[in-house]
């Protein structure tokens, strides 16, 4: 039941008084005798207490408001029956969410920022030597002193760099080189080139040789995991494709099960799609081993880096006419250096050498390879 709270008569001679302060808010539960407000008439102040249990409905006078004695100053709702347990409100309010850490950008000391502004140095291109990578003034000075303009690093380059560096740090990478006499293979591929459809390329042949050799040497394609070394159950081979500012390695699936023409076609198509930027993420995942070809350049052997998370990569040099010794005589043969980098954690030198020998022998036996 609602009832008004009236301004009490506090002084004989004077009619008016002031509500100085409210100690409750609308909606607040109250108990009988609880302090509601402080009132003042002339120099006499007085406490107004709740006449009953209940709840404050409305406050009719703002603090400081002048009221005539006897006028209503608040409405309260009297509690019916047993005292209502005042509810705890909305429960604990969730702490205000902290604003997301703003300011983004790079951590740099005020001195570094000022100098960067003065010299026109972009802080994004500066690496910080301070704690947690903070850029300090010396770093800006160093960056500014570079005589050559800095090209911003593309996300792809950053990604490649990080991945290679991390993988290099996690693996024990060793490279073996071997020379393959591909004179007969090249001649055979040449003969088949005039057929329709085209009969594949040296790269495709190498891919097929690797895939077949992997069947006999599965350890070379194993992966190091915490659970143990996982050997692959298929021979998906990655083919490194050079792009304008980077490298991508689309994967040819089941390379051991495909014939040379098919392999050649798939490799060409993947390379085209790669250069067009049209590869789907799935196409670059899951390779067991990669093949990278620098044969178009005057490169013989090199030390390719493993393509994470693989344990082996085969680099192909150019096939070049060189003097070779056969049956005691010096004869011109087309020779190609193969460079196999492998993760020594996963496979030791001898088995890796055995695998590479296998690949070489297959390349030197074109009849079986191109069949």
């Amino acid at each position, binding site marked *: 039941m609602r009832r008004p709270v009236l301004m009490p008569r506090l002084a004989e001679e004077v009619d008016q008084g002031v509500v100085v302060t409210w100690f409750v808010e609308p909606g607040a539960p109250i108990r009988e005798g609880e302090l509601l407000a402080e009132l003042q008439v002339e120099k006499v102040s007085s406490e107004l207490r709740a006449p009953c249990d209940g709840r404050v409905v409305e406050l009719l006078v703002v603090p400081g408001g002048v009221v005539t004695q006897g006028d209503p100053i608040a409405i309260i709702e009297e509690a019916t029956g047993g005292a209502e347990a005042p509810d705890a409100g909305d429960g604990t309010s969730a702490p205000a969410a902290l604003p997301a850490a703003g300011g983004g950008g790079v951590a740099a*000391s*005020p*001195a570094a920022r000022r100098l960067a502004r003065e010299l026109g140095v972009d802080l994004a291109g500066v690496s910080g030597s301070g704690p947690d990578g903070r850029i*300090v003034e010396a770093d800006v000075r160093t960056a500014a002193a570079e005589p050559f303009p800095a090209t911003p690093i593309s996300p792809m380059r950053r990604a490649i760099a990080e991945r290679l560096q991390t993988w290099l740090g996690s693996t024990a990478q060793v490279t073996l080189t071997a020379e393959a006499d591909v004179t007969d293979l090249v001649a055979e591929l040449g003969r088949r080139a005039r057929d329709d459809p085209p009969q594949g390329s040296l790269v495709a042949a190498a891919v097929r040789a690797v895939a077949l050799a992997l069947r006999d040497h599965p350890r070379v394609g194993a992966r190091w995991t915490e659970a143990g070394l996982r050997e692959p159950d298929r021979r998906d081979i990655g083919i490194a494709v050079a792009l304008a500012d980077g490298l991508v390695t689309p994967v040819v699936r089941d390379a051991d099960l495909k014939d040379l023409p098919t392999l050649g076609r798939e490799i060409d198509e993947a390379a085209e799609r790669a250069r067009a930027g049209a590869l789907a993420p799935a196409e670059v995942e899951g390779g067991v081993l990669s093949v990278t070809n620098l044969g178009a350049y005057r490169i013989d052997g090199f030390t390719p880096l493993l393509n994470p998370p693989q344990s082996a990569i085969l680099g192909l040099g150019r096939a070049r006419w060189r003097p070779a010794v056969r049956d005691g005589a010096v004869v011109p043969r087309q020779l190609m250096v193969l460079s196999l980098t492998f993760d020594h954690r996963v496979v030791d030198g001898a088995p890796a050498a055995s695998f590479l020998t296998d690949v070489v022998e297959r390349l030197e036996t074109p009849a079986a390879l191109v069949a």
Partner: protein
Amino acid sequence: MAVETKRRLLTTSKAVAEGIAQEMERDPAVFVMGEDIGVYGGIFGATEGLLAKFGPERIMDTPISETGFIGAATGAALSGMRPIVELMFVDFFGVCMDQIYNHMAKIHYESGGNVRVPVVVTTAIGGGYSDGAQHSQTLYGTFAHLPGMKIVVPSTPYDAKGLMIAAIRDDNPVIYMFHKGVMGLGWMTPNARATGEVPEEPYTVPIGKADIKRPGRDLTVVTVSLMVHRALDAAEELAAEGIEAEVLDLRSIVPLDREAIVESVRRTRRLLVVDEDYRSFGMTGEVITTVVEGAFDYLDAPPARLALPDVPIPYTRPLEQYVLPSRERIVAAARELVAGR
């Protein structure tokens, strides 16, 4: 044959006494009051020899009535005298602070500038010799926080005499804090830096002006009093490892030479404040804020501070030495600062 001019060396306490004596000779309105400042010459030597020179009318030993005689100093100043009144240990301010901060420091302002209170309150500060929690404080922050009184804290004999003469000639209340460890007293731990060259003639050191005691390139160490000595020792050690520390002696806490602090840190980019007073809500916070306000864009590392922790000063030597900033700690902090941490 080259004429060797002998350097005139005095201890800090003798320099203080000389400054007072020269001003008393010049101005008959100057007189000294305090406990044991007469016959004894001041517990820490600040008034040595003055009684014999000027007699008991001008060098007055008082009863133990700080409220009474410090209040009397204010009254005497209002009536044309220029009293020097000694509060024996700054730690005793509790018994008479009303006369200092509510009267001496405020009357000029309350009168709208119409009356002046030219009082110098000399007082001994500092610890490091096991005098315990009630006799070892510096309390710069406590006094500096309250408006109306200047505060000077000399660290060398030269500054001590110059600041004393300046304080006496200043028409405002000046709290002159001398550290017991810089006075060069024979009965305290020897301190080579407590003796220095002091010109014979009267001279002043400006109140409110800091002094670069040692120029440097790599960081600024801002400090006062005995900690200036520690900082200079630390700077020598740091120089051997290629770190050049600039030591800025504030000399005055009120007015604070904010310009000098900012100018120095703008050059060196790094700040270390060393304070023998309690850490929180005091001088270190004030100096760091001054630098943030005036040299923010020049900071190459977060400002750092060394101070007494917020504990009463312990009596036993190992604990007291542990809480006091030391040469070793200053060196370590400077290294951290230069390394960017």
